C-alpha cells in the first residue's frame, strides 16, 4: 500500500468517523439537556413547597383567606415572625432542640461508628446474630416502642427518687436524661456505619497491624478518617431526626423549660383552627439550622448517600 493510498484511507476514515463523532456528541448533548430538564423539574417540585411555606409566612390572615390564593404577598407581613416568637418561648425551645440534636449526633457518631466498626471488621462469636438483631430493630415501628421506652425511663433505678428497683419516684422523667439517652443511638446509624466500614479494603488493616497498631488505633486513625462521608451522612440524618422529634420530648417532659421547638410549633395547630401564617413562620425558622447544616456538609452528604446506596 503506497503512502498516498494510506493517507486517502485515513482521510476517508476521518470523513466517515467525524459525522459519527458529531452525532455522538450531539446525542450526548441532547441527553444532558434532557437530564438537566428532568433534574430542574425535580428541583422545582422540591423547592415549590418550601417557597410556598416562606410566602405563606409573610401573608396576612385576610390575604390567606382569598380565593384563588395569591402567589406573592400583597403586603409583606414581616411582623408575623415577631408575633410567632411572642406566641411561645421559642428562644428556649430552640436552645433545647439544639442541645438535644447536637448531643444525639455526637453520641451517634462516636458510639455508632464503634459499633459499626466492630460488626464489620472484628470477628467474634454471635456477630451475625447481633447484626440480625439490629436489622430486626429497624423494622419495629417507632410508635410501638414508645410505651416500653417510657417505662424504662420512668423506672430507672436510683434516679428521680427511685430506689434500686426503680420504684417510688419518677426516674428520668422530666430530665435531660430522658431527652438525650433513649434517642442517643439508633440501629439505623450502626447499620450505615457497618456498611461503610465493610466497603474499605482489608489490606489497610493488615498493614496497620504489621506496623503494630492496636484495634482502637486502627479504628480511629486508619479506617474512620476514610469514612468522612458516612460520618456526615449519619450525623446529618441523626441531627435532622432529633431536631424534628416531637412526640417523645412531649411525653417525657412536663416542664416548659425542657420543651423543644417542634412542641412549640404545635401551639399554632389546634384541633379546629390552624394559624397558618404563624405556623409557616415558625416552621421556616425551625428549618434554617437544617439548611445551614446541609450547605456545609453537602459534599460529604451526597458522597455518603451514593456510597451507601441509600439514594
Amino acid at each position, binding site marked *: 500500500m503506497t503512502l498516498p493510498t494510506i493517507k486517502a484511507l485515513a482521510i476517508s476514515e476521518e470523513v466517515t468517523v467525524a459525522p459519527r463523532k458529531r452525532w455522538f456528541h450531539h446525542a450526548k448533548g441532547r441527553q444532558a439537556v434532557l437530564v438537566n430538564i428532568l433534574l430542574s423539574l425535580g428541583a422545582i417540585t422540591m423547592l415549590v413547597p418550601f417557597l410556598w411555606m416562606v410566602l405563606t409566612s409573610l401573608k396576612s390572615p385576610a390575604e390567606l*383567606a382569598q*380565593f384563588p390564593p395569591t402567589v406573592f404577598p400583597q403586603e409583606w407581613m414581616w411582623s408575623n415572625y415577631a408575633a410567632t416568637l411572642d406566641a411561645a418561648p421559642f428562644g428556649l425551645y430552640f436552645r433545647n432542640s439544639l442541645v438535644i440534636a447536637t448531643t444525639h449526633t455526637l453520641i451517634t457518631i462516636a458510639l455508632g461508628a464503634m459499633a459499626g466498626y466492630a460488626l464489620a471488621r472484628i470477628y467474634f462469636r454471635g456477630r451475625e446474630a447481633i447484626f440480625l438483631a439490629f436489622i430486626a430493630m429497624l423494622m419495629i415501628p417507632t410508635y410501638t416502642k414508645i410505651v416500653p421506652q417510657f417505662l424504662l425511663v420512668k423506672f430507672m433505678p436510683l434516679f428521680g427518687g427511685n430506689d434500686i428497683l426503680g420504684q417510688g419516684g419518677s426516674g428520668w422523667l422530666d430530665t435531660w436524661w430522658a431527652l438525650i439517652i433513649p434517642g442517643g443511638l439508633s440501629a439505623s446509624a450502626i447499620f450505615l456505619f457497618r456498611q461503610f466500614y465493610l466497603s474499605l479494603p482489608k489490606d489497610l488493616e493488615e498493614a496497620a497491624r504489621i506496623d503494630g497498631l492496636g484495634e482502637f488505633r486502627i479504628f480511629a486513625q486508619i479506617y474512620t478518617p476514610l469514612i468522612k462521608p458516612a460520618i456526615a451522612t449519619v450525623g446529618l440524618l441523626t441531627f435532622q431526626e432529633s431536631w424534628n422529634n416531637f412526640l417523645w420530648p*412531649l*411525653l417525657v417532659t412536663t416542664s416548659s423549660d425542657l420543651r423543644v421547638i417542634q412542641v412549640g410549633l404545635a401551639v399554632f395547630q389546634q384541633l379546629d383552627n390552624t394559624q397558618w401564617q404563624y405556623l409557616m413562620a415558625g416552621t421556616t425558622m425551625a428549618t434554617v439550622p437544617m439548611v445551614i447544616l446541609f450547605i456545609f456538609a453537602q459534599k460529604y452528604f451526597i458522597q455518603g448517600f451514593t456510597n451507601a446506596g441509600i439514594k
Partner: protein
Amino acid sequence: MEVKSRMRRTASVAMVALMGLGLAACSAGEADADLNPDEVSGEISLLTPIFEGSPGQDLLEDELLPQFYEEYPNVTVNVDYTTYGNLNEKLTTAVVSGLVPDVMLMGVGWIEAFADKGVLADLGELGLSEADLKESYTDEIVEAGMWDGNVYAVPIMLDTRFGVARMDILKEAGYDSPPSSWDELIEIAEATTVRSSNGSLERAGFDMMSLDARQAFETVLFSAGGDLFNADATEPTFNSDEGVAALGLMADLVNKYEVEDIGFTSTDDIVNPLINGRAAMGIAHNNLWTQALEADETVLDNLEPFVIQGESSGMFFGGTLATVANNSKNPQAARALLEFLSSPEAALAANEQRGNVPALTELLDSDYVQSNRFVQFAMENLDVAKREGGPAQWLEVRGDFAPAVQAALLGQKTPEEALDDLAALVQTSIDR
C-alpha cells in the same frame, strides 16, 4: 328565633339568680362549704390540652392560678401543657407508668374510657353530685362527664358544630332565611351551587368536607333524630333508619344534587370556604366567627348560624372537661383546682382565649358571649345539642367513622352497607 332567644336569655337570668343561692356548692370559684382552704394543701399536677402557647400560659399562670393560690395558699400546681392531638398518648403513658396527673383536662367522649379503667376519681365521693351539676349545666353536658351513673368530670368549655349560611349568597338566590328543613336545605343548596361552563365546581351549595367526616355525619344524624348508641351504650344505633337517612342525605348532596364535589374543600384548607364565598352554606365549628373576624370582618354580617332541622334539631357538641385522678395523693387539693377551673370566672377566661362556648349556662349573659354571635347562638341552643361518645371503647372506634362516611360519599357502599359494616366493627369492640 329572636323571641326564643330572648326567652332563653330571660330564663338564664332567672337561673343565675337562683344559682346565686345554690351554685356555690359546685363551682363559682369560691371555696366549697366542704373544703376548708386552710386545711387543703399539697403539690398537685395539672395536665391540660388548653391554655397552650404564651397567651394561654400567661392567662393560666399569671392570672388564674394566682387567684387560686390566694384562696388555697397551701396548694402548689405544676402544669403540664400538651395538645389535643397527643393527649391520648400522654394519658396512656401516664396511666401505664402509674404517674397519673392529679387533675386532667380531657375531651367529651374520653371520660368513659378512663373512668372504665379506674383512672378517674368518682367526683360524687369528693362531694360533687349529678344534681348539683344539673343546676348549672344542661343535662346532656353533665352526662358527658358521667360513666355508669357516677360523675367523673365537670365541663369547662364546649366546641359546637351547626349549620352556617352566607346570607348575601342566599339573598342573591332569592332566599331570606337559612333552611328550616332538609328539603329546604337541598333546594337552597342546589340554587346556590355554581359550576363553570366545563362543569367544575366554583361554589358549593352546602359544604360538609371542611370538617371531620365523623362530626359532619353526627350533626346530620342528630338532625335526623338518631343517636350514636342505645341508652346504656351497649349497642350502636347510628345504623338505624335515621342514621341511614342522614348518611343518605349526605351522599345525595354529593352524588345526586351535586352541591359539593369530593375534594372541593378539606379539613386542611387554610380558610373555611364560607369565609371566602366558596360555599353558600355548610356545617361549621363555632370558632368560624373568630376565624372570620381575623380574616375578613366584612363577612361577619353575612354569616348566619342555623340548627340543621330534620326530624329533630341537629347540633353537635364536644368540649373539654376537668377530672381528678383516682390515685391522687391530694384529692382535696385536686378537687379544689377542678372546681376553680370550672368556675364561671376561670371558665369564661379560658373560653374567651380560645373563642369557645362556655358550658355554664349562667355565662350566656357575659360580655364575651354577647359579643360573639356564634358562641351566643350555640349557648342558646345547647338544649338541643347532642354529644359524641358513649361506650368505653369510643376512643378506639371513633377513627373508623370517617372511612365509613367517605365510602358512602364516594359511592363505594350504600349508606346502609357503610353503616352496617361500621356498626359490626363497633359492636365487636364493645363486646371484646
